[in-house]
């Protein structure tokens, strides 16, 4: 900048710092403005209003006998509704927390012990674990088994073995009556 300093009319350091200020201020406003202009483009890729509107599902539990499980759709995702047997509840409650990868007691994952409600998506890479049908493999812990990369979940839907990092997610749901729930 030595040349421009000698060439500048004022030649003082005063003039130079005013120029620097203008340059920095212009760049900063330009950068913020660009960032703000980018946001609508980025946000347009987030879920749209109609996608968000389809956000609850109601399920009738009366037809699900003990030991049975059904799969319902909620927000385009499968949700497992399992009517657990006494044995399944017992094994879920008695599993020592120290054995769990994401330690959560079974009572924090159910509202009524016989009804286990889970998002049926493996927390590894999003496959649907097997174990809903009686003929499906249920893994080493009697819950679910993901065939894609071999994750085993227990009767509370907690990860016990395999690459998945987290337990199957419990969605938000409310009991509308004793035999009906609303998910979402």
């Amino acid at each position, binding site marked *: 900048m030595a040349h421009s300093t000698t060439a500048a009319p004022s030649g003082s350091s005063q003039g130079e710092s005013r120029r620097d200020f203008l340059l920095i201020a212009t760049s900063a406003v330009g950068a913020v403005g660009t960032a703000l202009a980018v946001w609508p483009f980025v946000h347009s890729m987030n879920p749209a209003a109609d996608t968000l509107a389809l956000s609850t599902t109601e399920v009738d539990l009366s037809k699900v006998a003990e030991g049975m499980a059904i*799969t319902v759709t909620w927000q385009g995702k499968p949700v497992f509704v399992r009517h657990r047997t006494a044995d399944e509840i017992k094994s879920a409650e008695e599993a020592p927390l120290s054995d769990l990868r994401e330690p959560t007691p079974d009572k924090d994952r159910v509202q009524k012990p016989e009804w286990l409600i889970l998002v049926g998506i493996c927390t590894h890479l999003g496959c649907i674990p097997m174990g809903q049908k009686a003929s499906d493999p249920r893994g080493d812990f009697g819950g679910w088994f993901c*065939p894609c990369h071999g994750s085993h979940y227990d009767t509370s839907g907690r990860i016990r073995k395999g690459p998945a990092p987290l337990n199957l997610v419990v969605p938000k749901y409310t009991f509308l009556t004793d035999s009906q729930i609303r998910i979402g």
Partner: protein
Amino acid sequence: MSAPAFNNKIIKWIDERIPLFTVLDHSTSSYPTPKNLNYWWNFGSLALFALVIMIMTGIVLAMNYTGHTSMAFDSVERIMRDVNYGWLLRYLHMNGASFFFICVYVHIFRGLYYGSYKAPREILWWLGLLIYLAMMATAFMGYVLPWGQMSFWGATVITNLFSAVPVVGNFIVTWLWGGFAVDNPTLNRFFSLHYLLPFVIFALVFLHLVALHTSKSGNPSGIEIKGPQDTIMFHPYYTIKDLYGVGVFLLVFMGFVFFAPNFFGEPDNYIPANPMVTPPHIVPEWYYLPFYAILRAIPDKLGGVIAMFGAILVLFALPWLDSSKVRSGRFRPVFKWFFWLFLADCFVLGWIGGKPAEGNYIPIGQAATFWYFFHLLVVLPLLGRLEKPLALPASISASVLKEKA
């Protein structure tokens, strides 16, 4: 650059206003090319040829494709059954993707053997890696478009890789999907990006060629051009050689298109996508299998994702990891063996990537993953220091004349 003298008045008139013909002349006719290039040097131009096939078939396919979950599968079947030559265009596009990758993989391993990534060609190498990354993204999104079972579940598994990112992972995945699962918004944007990315690849190829024409082509001897006795003109000598390569390529390529068009595909993708049923065995397309094996070799989600992306990113550092001053594997007696071992290792990874993650496949995959990184991060830096290379020929010309004698 000095402009060549044009005799034609119209060409001269145009060239004085925009130097199209000068550029063309510099990059073809008078572009000095080493005279000892072997057939492994054909695969760059073959890859470009494959890209052109993909763009041409893609444009006409898009005229008959519908990017909606309720119609995508049927619109592809309509292309196969009703659209004139639709079956041919789609099979060219499907198999073209595989052959594009075959050419690029041969091209990459050519570069690995002959040290094509070494100074002054680091940026040339980086541009090639960027092309490769853009190709993988394009191919992945293209595979989703027919909306079969593998399309859907491949998309689900791959987009879920991003959920491994700490804290913001789930927001990124929702953003990528435009919903709470892979669904119509996902299909729509993938179609948009699948159409865009090939043109990005084309721009990168252009830069790749600018870098190539600046540093000039490498060659099997790995020594630089020292004078005109080492080179021949690109045109007509290498245009005709590349054209011959195109002929052989077409023979093999059309063989698959006509006689085994679904060889590289998965039968499951002819079942319409069903978000409620995961196929028992999700396999990506063959060109991703080595990376899929690396992903699954690490028994931790974030770790697996980092290893998988790391496997490609580490290649960007290759010009500095390989410490040997000698470029060509021809004059590196020990490196040569490690190169073939590394190639075999990549094939093992590809084989494991196509197998279920169980039993003996797990330790084999882990050993192969270990060797992949060990080769790049430990073997290459050490080899350059320990290995005693053979004597280099005096020049490209001398190496050719010696071979003749």
